[in-house]
């Protein structure tokens, strides 16, 4: 099951050229671009690991792409996303976020039904991949 999170996630995966164009748009707006990765893509997992520091004083997307490729070398089997943080007053939040790398094989999520009192049902989504220990979830070491 293809994970869809953030911008452009219903489009085919962006090419590096398209990623660079989006990053350039972010830099042009003065947003800090971050690279984040995770192997636990649960929709409620907002806090992904950061790859390096936010990149806020770059002029050109090539620098970000360089970091992205470094990150892919190490965590190519995980989800990697770019997020752009707008520090200007009144916003102070992430303005754009999109997935730039995903594992080859995405086992998806299962829905668990928990029968509570009075025939109520509580639902939980669980990632199949997250059953395995961290680092080994997507065919990693």
């Amino acid at each position, binding site marked *: 099951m293809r994970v869809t999170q953030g911008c452009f996630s219903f489009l085919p995966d962006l090419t590096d050229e398209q990623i660079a164009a989006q990053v350039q748009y972010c830099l042009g707006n003065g947003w800090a671009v971050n690279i984040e990765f995770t192997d636990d893509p649960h929709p409620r997992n907002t806090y992904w690991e950061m790859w*390096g520091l936010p*990149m806020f*004083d*770059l*002029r*050109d*997307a*090539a*620098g*970000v792409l*360089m*970091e992205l490729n470094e990150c892919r070398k190490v965590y190519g089997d995980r989800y990697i996303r770019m997020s752009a943080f707008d520090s200007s007053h009144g916003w102070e939040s992430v303005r754009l976020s999109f997935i730039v790398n995903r594992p080859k094989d995405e086992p998806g999520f299962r829905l668990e039904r928990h029968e509570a009192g009075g025939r109520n049902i509580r639902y939980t989504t669980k990632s199949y991949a997250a059953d395995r220990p961290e680092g080994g979830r997507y065919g990693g070491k």
Partner: protein
Amino acid sequence: MSSVAVSPAAAETLPSEQVDLRREFNEVGIGDVLDQLDRELIGLKPVKTRIREIASLLLIERIRKRMNLTSDVPTLHMSFTGNPGTGKTTVALRMANILHKLGFVRRGHVVSVTRDELVGQYIGHTAPKTKEILKKAMGGVLFIDEAYYLYRPDNERDYGQEAIEILLQVMESQREDLVVILAGYGDRMDKFFSSNPGFRSRIAHHIDFPDYADDELLAIAELMLRDMNYRFSAEARQAFIRYIELRKTQPLFSNARSIRNALDRMRLRQANRLVADLDRVLTADNIMSLEASDVLASRVFLTGSGG
């Protein structure tokens, strides 16, 4: 000049194998930059010639690329060698402008660094630091001043080597993203290159900046003064000619930079002279002109006459 008709009507109907060179030239607008270079930089004949050559090469390269005759990105890394104050940084800024207009760098900004900004202080500190700078310089020009300090042969544990390796790697693999200009004194750069052959082979253009002649230094001084709305009186000009002669023989002479500093001190003395007589009514002319006494009070003349 091109043999192709220059009139715009004819240019419209040119087949794609033909190129109107003049129109190309005007389109990228490097003519202005080159003219500005000629106008604003005094002397430096060999440098200007080289830059014109490089600009022509790049213009042709650009056309070749469009005609699918080449797909390679030309190596554009350069080294500027010359004594202090000969205009290396200024030319680097212009170079970035030219490269930007020709489309060989995307943004055309210059990131100017020295060893301190590239090399870390402890293990594992250098790589992130160098990469940080490289990321900032992407799409523009990375100007490394006094590049030979990166390599310290006397200390084999020096982290400079690590920075050099990262630089070399990026210079090779990301040629389309970044142009690196190394600058420094001629003899020390030669030594640096001979101990780092990787650098020499990755640098396409070596440009040597000659020292300025006396009359060029005077012209530079007058240009600087004009920019600041000052001028020499006739006697002050004579005195300054002597000042240049004497200053050149003294240690730590750094060409145009020394001239700028000298002018700053002269402005100081002029201001002091004017303020000394508070009852005087000043004209614009008084305020603008530097007198011989402002020049002659320099320490340079003392040591010059005293031996």
